[in-house]
Structure formats: structure tokens, C-alpha cells
């Protein structure tokens, strides 16, 4: 087994709420002074996690519109997805022969798994997290057309808006940003009301709705 690696984030950068314990529970942690928070990683090395966190936060930045990938814990979400069945291509037909240059209408036909695509893509982004914002944007523009970038972009959106049980969308910041109330059981009284005005009930997570812990897909098998 590999040495356990951690993603170390300053409490100021994430609002001091985010911690995963070893049994994969999310805990709220009040910031104690400026002590950094250490999150156990399942797939990435510490250096890789920092790059992914930095890149995701250029894709979905924290800005005057509100929180972004950093506050939502997107890097942690992606780490867990890659460590789980999706990362090793459990949800894809992987029999040979592969066709690396298939027409787009046939979807991705290559051999590499999401884990391999990330590992290789991150090779090209060494030192990315130490660049300035503008330089990071330039770097991302150079790789915009790659499969790695399209995965990273898609996974960033997933990490922003997934149910919090998957490690992203912490405190439902993504849902609050976009105005999605989560798995609300009934809209019966509201569905034909509020015409033309924003109706924004307080978001609820699946765990709050069901009253029990639901096992996320990344923890299966």
C-alpha cells in the first residue's frame, strides 16, 4: 500500500469547514487560528491534488459571483471518483481493439482509463499551482482541446453540483449558487405558483431527506 498522502489547504482558502476523516465522513472543523487542514487522499499524490485544485478553481473560480471549485471541495471529489470504479473504467466497455482516432459521433474509443488520462495530463502541468492566475489561464488554454481538459472540466462541474455525499458541493455551496434545492420531496403546492419569479427553497442533501447515510457509487465494489 502506498504512503498515505494528504491535500493540505489553508483554512482561509476554504473557509475552514472541510475535513474528511479516514472513515470517509465529512466533519465540520472550526478554523483554529491559521492551522492548515490535511485531507487524506485516495488517488492523487499531494502535488497532483494541488495542481487539480488550482486548475479546477480556474475553470470554476471563486470570484465576485460567489464561491467556486475551491470552496466546494472539487479536488477532493475528483480524487474520490478516480479512486473508485469510474476511475478504473468500470462503467465503460473496454474490450479491444481500441480506435484512438475515431470520429466524434462514436464517443471516446481510446484505451486509457480516467486514472491514466489524469496521470498523464498532470505530467504536463508540473508546477501549475505555483503560477499566477493569468499564467494558469494561459496554460489551460493550451490544453483546452485535450481529452484530459474536457474530463477535468466535466469533473469540476460534477464536483460543484453533486450531492455532498460525493465529497464536492460542500455545504451545498454549488446548489445555493445556482438555485437548485437538491432532492426536495414535494413541489406539489409550488409547481404551478411563483410564475416568473425565483422560488428558491433552502437546499437539502440526500442524507437530510432520507435520514440515513446513502452509499455513494465511488465507494461500491
Amino acid at each position, binding site marked *: 500500500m502506498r504512503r498515505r498522502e494528504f491535500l493540505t489547504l489553508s483554512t482561509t482558502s476554504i473557509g475552514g469547514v472541510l475535513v474528511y476523516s479516514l472513515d470517509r465522513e465529512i466533519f465540520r472543523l472550526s478554523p483554529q487560528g491559521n492551522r492548515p487542514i490535511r485531507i487524506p487522499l485516495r488517488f492523487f499524490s499531494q502535488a497532483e491534488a494541488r495542481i487539480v485544485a488550482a486548475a479546477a478553481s480556474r475553470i470554476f473560480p471563486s470570484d465576485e*459571483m460567489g464561491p467556486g471549485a475551491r470552496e466546494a471541495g472539487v479536488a477532493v471529489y475528483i480524487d474520490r471518483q478516480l479512486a473508485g470504479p*469510474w476511475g478504473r473504467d468500470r462503467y465503460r*466497455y473496454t*474490450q479491444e481493439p481500441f480506435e484512438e482516432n475515431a470520429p466524434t459521433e462514436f464517443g471516446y474509443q481510446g484505451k486509457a482509463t480516467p486514472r491514466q488520462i489524469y496521470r498523464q495530463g498532470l505530467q504536463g502541468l508540473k508546477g501549475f499551482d505555483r503560477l499566477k492566475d493569468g499564467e494558469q489561464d494561459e496554460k489551460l488554454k493550451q490544453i483546452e482541446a485535450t481529452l484530459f481538459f474536457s474530463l477535468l472540466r466535466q469533473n469540476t462541474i*460534477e464536483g460543484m453540483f*453533486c450531492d455532498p455525499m460525493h465529497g464536492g458541493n460542500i455545504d451545498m455551496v454549488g446548489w445555493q449558487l445556482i438555485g437548485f434545492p437538491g432532492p426536495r420531496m414535494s413541489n406539489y403546492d409550488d409547481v404551478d405558483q411563483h410564475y416568473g*419569479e425565483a422560488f428558491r427553497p433552502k437546499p437539502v442533501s440526500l442524507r437530510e431527506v432520507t435520514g440515513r447515510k*446513502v452509499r455513494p*457509487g465511488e465507494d461500491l465494489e
Partner: protein
Amino acid sequence: MKTLLAVDVVIVGGGWTGLLMAKELGSRTSLTVVVLERGGPRGTDHYGDDMDELDYTIRFRMMQDISQETVTLRHDVNQRALPLRQYGSFLPGSGVGGAGEHWSAVCPRFLPDCFELLSRTTEKYGAARLPEDHAIQDWGISYDDLESHYARADLLLGVSGKAGNIRGKQIAGGNIFEGWRSAEYPTPPTKIPYFSAVFGEAAKSLGYHPYPVPAATTSRSYTNPDGVSRAGCTYCGFCETFGCMIGAKAQPTNILLPVIAKRKNVSIRTGAWVRRIVHDAPKGNGRARGVTYIEGKGEEVFQPAELIILASWTLNNTRLLLLSGIGERYDPATSEGTLGRNLTHQVVFSAATAFFEKPLNRFMGSGASGMMLSDLDGDVFDHGKLPFLRGGTLGARTARSLPISDCGVVPKSVKTTWGSEWKKAALHYYDRAGRISFSGEHLAYVGNYMDLDPVYKDHFDDPLLRLTLDWRENERKMVEYVVPKAVEIAREMGAKEVTPYSGLRRYDATRYQSSHLQGGTIMGRSPEHSVVNPYLQHWQVSNLFVLGASVFPQNASANPTPTILAFTYRAADAIVDGYLKNPAALA
């Protein structure tokens, strides 16, 4: 290989058709019936905690395990087929209830002339107007033959809607272009969410005849003729790709399982992967003797049976017959053979994506709550001077506005796809974008068909099914005609920006269309041109019946579930009242 004790009836597949047939045969006869379902078990209240977009919509929790089996695709016979390695243009379900569990529950009937498409079209426009390479056929029955069975299906599901034609009398507010109904819908229309209501108003002011989408997400609590009760819909929006948490959406598990569970003569075996139908009729007439399947533990067993009902997912019906060597394989070069012919999909896309100033609250709704119109469907409008035949419906459903799937739907004026500027637009437009969808007819062509792939295999080393499938000029011209009309409605709705559909090019396996594929084991009047007779009985093997959309000679623009159920009822009647009394060819 172990041989099990013989049973009277074996049903391959535990979805809508297999379980409806099991319910009918189980209730109306004392035959021993075994349903073989290759997926896992489900109960009536299975969906307490599935409202998770990531695992269900993005990772396809309810679908067949694509790592085990998929299909291959090529656009024409000169291309090398490639496997669909991840889900895209359609979503086959798995487990008890099948795709009937994760459907959106849109529940229309087909237009009457769909069942006599070849003769009606030829009669009106002449044979010369048909596309040169068409393979259009009549079904061998008429809408009038089917209406009473449609009515049974509507009652079974408790479909919500507003009739537009009761026994020939047109009724404003319903679909005045539909075929006659013997009765009003069992339950009133669903509530209409804001975006859909605005669509309805705009369409009406432009002279169209909008009506509420027929929905099996029932508008109020309902008890069907089998005594099965369901709650009314709460518009939570988790319908398509999900099972309904409160059972308001009609699903095989909540309306068929409760009846089956009371019948001691019916049993369902899950984890039973059928590989072959065993028969003594490679060509010509003969009998099926049973099926072989892999049990959960991996052992292959033989289940003998007197009567075999093939009721698996539409494409798999064709594949199982091809693998079993039952019937004559279709050859597109000569148009000889019948098995695998007339593969069709459905022409479905967002005709106009409309961006509004006001928020739409699109998270509230159901898979089938909305308004639609049929003014551009079938042959409702004259095609005499148009460069295509047939048409489809335009509609505005308010369903499935989930944030991972819908974040980033922005107008064309937004040039970036990431970063601050894009984020600002993505957040602003998330709840200000609505889709006017087109659901159009896909004609059958000589060159669109199915056979077995020579290269790729499933996890048991059986060849995958190969689809040879592409659009033709008729579909492309239909799209060109209908998109500007959708844009006009969007403008009338007050949209500030509208993105029209960019047009059909080659068949795209990555873009979700619908899970409505038809053909392969088509029905018809003669064994020269079809696989099953109008009672869905195999022409050559009289103790084999085939259920589901694989028997449709071509697509009919509307979603297929009520039609599939109506045909299953009709086949059940033919078996109980005809075949069991005299086990021979019914036609």
C-alpha cells in the same frame, strides 16, 4: 449443463412487456410461468434513496452494465463498426422492471395512419414520393383493432391527460389530431409548470393546438382495475433515469409486481442471463424447446418450456434470435431475410433552446409534465409541396433540470466554456433556459438494420449486436422545416436569445436521443417481410412470441410504451383465447 424441471411458459425479460404478460397469463390461466431477468431484483418500494444525479444520471446506475455488453455501430456497410463504449444516444435498463423503471412516463398513442403507413402514404402521395431506399411497411393491423387494448393500457397506468377525440367528437384543449378514444383519460392532466404553460400560451396564439402531455406520472392518487393504488405526483423532478421514490410514476414494479406476487404459478428468477433459445427449427417450421441461461453463480442451465415469450429489451430480442439461429437473417444487398431488418430510432432533439429574462423554477416538474402540439405530426399537415414525408410533435416539458447536466447551457453570445465570464453566464442562465423539443418520425430504410458483429464480444464471448444506422434526407429536411417553427414559438414566449438546433448530420451515438429503438423482429402480414405475425407469434416457430418495440416496422414519432403495452395485451388475448386451445399458427 443442468436441465431444470419443465415449465409451461418461460418469459425472457422482466420489464414492461415480460411482466405484463406474466401478470396476464398468471391471472387468467393456471400455467406455470417463469420470468428470467438478467438484472437484479427490485421491490415495489425500491427507490427511497436514489435521488442522486451523479450516480443515477451521470453514472447510469439503473442501466445495463455496459462493461459486460454493448452494441457496435456503423453508419453504412462500408464502415468498420465500433462499440458504443459508454452510454450516449439511448439507455437500456436492467433489473426487474427494466427500462420501465427509469422512463420519464410520457404516454401518447400513435396516430392511426402509422399502422398503415405504406398504404396510406402511397394512396395519398403515390409510390414515387417514398424515399428510394425506404423499407416502410404496414403493421398488419389497424388502429381500430388496437384501440380497446390502448384503453386497457391507459387504465393499467392511470394515464393523466385530456382527450381530444372521443369516438370521433373533437374536444378543444385535448389533442384534436389524435386517433379516436373510447373514453377520457383515467386521470386529469398533470399540473403545468411555468415554462410549459408559457409555451402553451405562445403556441396557441400562433394558431397551434397545444395540449397537456399524456403522463403516467399520475396527477392524483389512482387505483387501477387490478386494484393497485398509487399516490399522485409531487413534481420532485427525479423521473427520467430514476425510479419514482413515492411510486407516483407507473413502473412495472409498482403496478405489475403486486399482482404477480399474489400468483403462486408465477415466479421471477433474477440474475438469469439468457444466452440461447433452444429449438429444432434452424429454417422452416419447428418448435422452441426452452432456453439456456447463466445462473447467478455462473453455471449454465437449460430451462425447458412449452411456450417461450421473448420480452427482453428491444435490441436484445433481435440479438437473441440471431444468436439462437431462429429465422432468416436479413441481407440489405438483396432485401431477403427478415431478422434484423427495419432498425429505426426516433428523431429527438432540442429544436430551440430559449433563454429568458425571468427565472423558470425548472427544478419543479415531472418527466411528463408539460404541453405539446401535434399540428406538425404525421400527415396532419399536407406534404404535397414539402421535400419530406411525415413529421413529429413539438413540446415543452418541465423535467430533469438537474445542475450537473444543465449547468453551462448558455446562449451563443457567451464565447467561453470555463473561467469567470462563463461561470457568471452559467449561473445566470441555469434557470433561465428552456428547451422546445421535437420528437419526430424515423422512417425505415433498406440499409438500416442489425446483425452480429464479427469482432466485438460480450463477457460470455458471444458476438455483440451490430447496428448499421444513419439518418437520411427525409429526416434532415424534416428537421430543417420544423426548427424555424420552434424558434418562432420561443420568440413568441418572450425569449431574449434562442439557439436553434444545428441540424442532423450523421447518426451521433454520443447525444442522447431517446431509448426508443424499433425493429429487428418486425410484425407484418406475411412471413416474407416480417418475423412475427400480427399476434406477435413467430412465423416459423409457433410456440415463440416476441414482445416489445422490436416488432414495430418503423418508428412513429410518439414514445412507444402505451403501444408496446397495448400489443402485449393483444398478444396475451391471442395466447389465452386462441393458442392455448389450439397450439398452432394463429395467422
